[in-house]
């Protein structure tokens, strides 16, 4: 039985209604100001510093446990790890041998088409903090923020491929929205034949979807999807996932395609923030938009400016328009 002490016998809370209305108006004002006008960036950055100790306090026991487990690893385990890493490094180096030459060749060919898609030229590694910020959204907090130059809309990779993009930047931390978030969409390309489309998240970390492909589209299970670089938010050519299942129902006009993400969304500990080289024009500007009256001016012809690449429906819509302008309709 819960016994409340009756310390307030008068039972009066003066002006409860008035204060409630005031606080609610304040909260509503905050919602509108935050949503509609982007004025609260500074306030939010300050508040995120205040929240930082709580975040660290929650995450540090887990980090401490990891550190402890690492420091009591046996010599044999370390040697096994080292052997495995050396083998991986050797394999990676073999693959890299021709990379420089291929990269240069690709740049030359792209320059011929005046189509220099964004090239990643700077990386910063961030650690994912062990926090669970929302059970219903696929987001993580990473320990790099505005102080390290992270910006909203920035692409985030892990060792396997595209991880997500920065949704919000604090002073010391930033929030990354995963490619699998239900509100996230990313312009992709089938590596085998160059077919361009959009991969959207499902809210399930093990699955993305390609909802805008017709039943006749040339896509089969096992196809590698890479970023197309359209929209300018992501660097081109990084793996997003592999097609897992293609279901074609003759009664439907669109195919139902499941994609397995390339990044280890549920296991990654470290991610990389990527800076795309300056001067790279959005690839859409040079796409063969023959029938479009705006084809003359690149600025009007590129529908998705890189700055507007905020995650969510806006980005999805922008990316959709981008693909619509550039992609050969299947």
């Amino acid at each position, binding site marked *: *039985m*819960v*016994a*409340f*002490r*009756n*310390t*307030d016998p008068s*039972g009066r*809370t003066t002006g*409860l*209604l008035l*204060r*409630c209305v005031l*606080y*609610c108006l*304040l*909260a*509503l*004002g*905050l*919602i509108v*100001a*935050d*949503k509609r006008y982007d004025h*609260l960036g500074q*306030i*939010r950055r300050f*508040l*995120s510093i*205040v*929240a930082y100790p*709580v*975040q660290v*306090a*929650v995450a540090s026991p*887990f980090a401490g446990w990891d550190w402890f487990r690492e420091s009591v690893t046996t010599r044999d385990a370390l040697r096994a790890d080292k052997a495995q890493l050396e083998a991986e490094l050797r394999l990676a180096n073999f693959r890299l041998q021709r990379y420089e030459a291929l990269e240069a060749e690709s740049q030359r060919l792209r320059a011929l088409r005046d189509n220099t898609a964004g090239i990643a030229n700077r990386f910063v590694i961030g650690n994912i903090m*062990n*926090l*669970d*910020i*929302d*059970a*219903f*959204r696929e*987001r993580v*907090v990473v320990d790099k923020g505005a102080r390290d130059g992270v910006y909203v809309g920035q692409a985030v990779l892990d060792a396997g491929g595209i991880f997500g993009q920065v*949704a*919000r930047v604090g002073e010391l931390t930033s*929030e990354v929205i995963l490619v699998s978030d*239900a*509100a996230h969409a990313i312009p992709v390309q089938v590596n085998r034949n160059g077919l361009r489309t959009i991969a959207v998240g499902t*809210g399930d970390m093990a699955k993305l979807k390609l909802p805008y492909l017709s039943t006749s589209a040339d896509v089969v299970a096992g196809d590698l999807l890479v970023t197309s670089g359209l929209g300018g938010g992501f660097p081109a050519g990084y793996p997003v996932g592999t097609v897992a299942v293609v279901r074609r129902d003759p009664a439907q006009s669109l195919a139902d395609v499941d994609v397995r993400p390339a990044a280890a969304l*549920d296991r990654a500990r470290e991610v990389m923030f990527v800076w795309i080289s300056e001067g790279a024009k959005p690839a859409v500007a040079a796409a063969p938009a023959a029938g479009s009256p705006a084809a003359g001016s690149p600025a009007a012809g590129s529908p998705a400016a890189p700055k507007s690449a905020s995650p*969510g*429906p806006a980005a999805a819509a922008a990316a959709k328009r981008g693909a619509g302008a550039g992609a050969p309709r299947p």
Partner: protein
Amino acid sequence: MMRDDRVRRLPMALSALVALAFAVIPLPTAIDAFRPDFLVLVVFYWSIESPRAGGLFLAFAAGLALDVIRGVVLGQHALALTLMAAWATHLRLRLRVFSVLSQSLTIFALLTGYQFILFWVDGATGNPVTTFSRWLAPIIGGLIWPLLAGGLSRLHER
């Protein structure tokens, strides 16, 4: 009365801080949706127990902290928590004489209202979360309310 209020502020702030940490502590994905809103329950407890010491400011501040730490639009949790805490304060004299079952049911109703306002703001700002499992939290919250309220009252009566 003033001195009594000031004495209460410490356990109030401490319990709110601990509850805030519980809101983001990582859980296995399987039981993540079952995580009760501890901070909301704590705010309800103080709204009922001593509305004059913390009252709506506590609710507003806790809501704002949730907004920042969850990374949602600023003011969402603050709005929901303020409204429901005001309602809890309004009901507190009745709540104090209720049986445990009635208290739990009332808290369940308050939590559902809280969740509904969150749901509404989510939709209004353009990123709706329509999974059914978001309505589990109020049920869990109503179930653990007797434990939490009992624990908190023992804590600050010492």
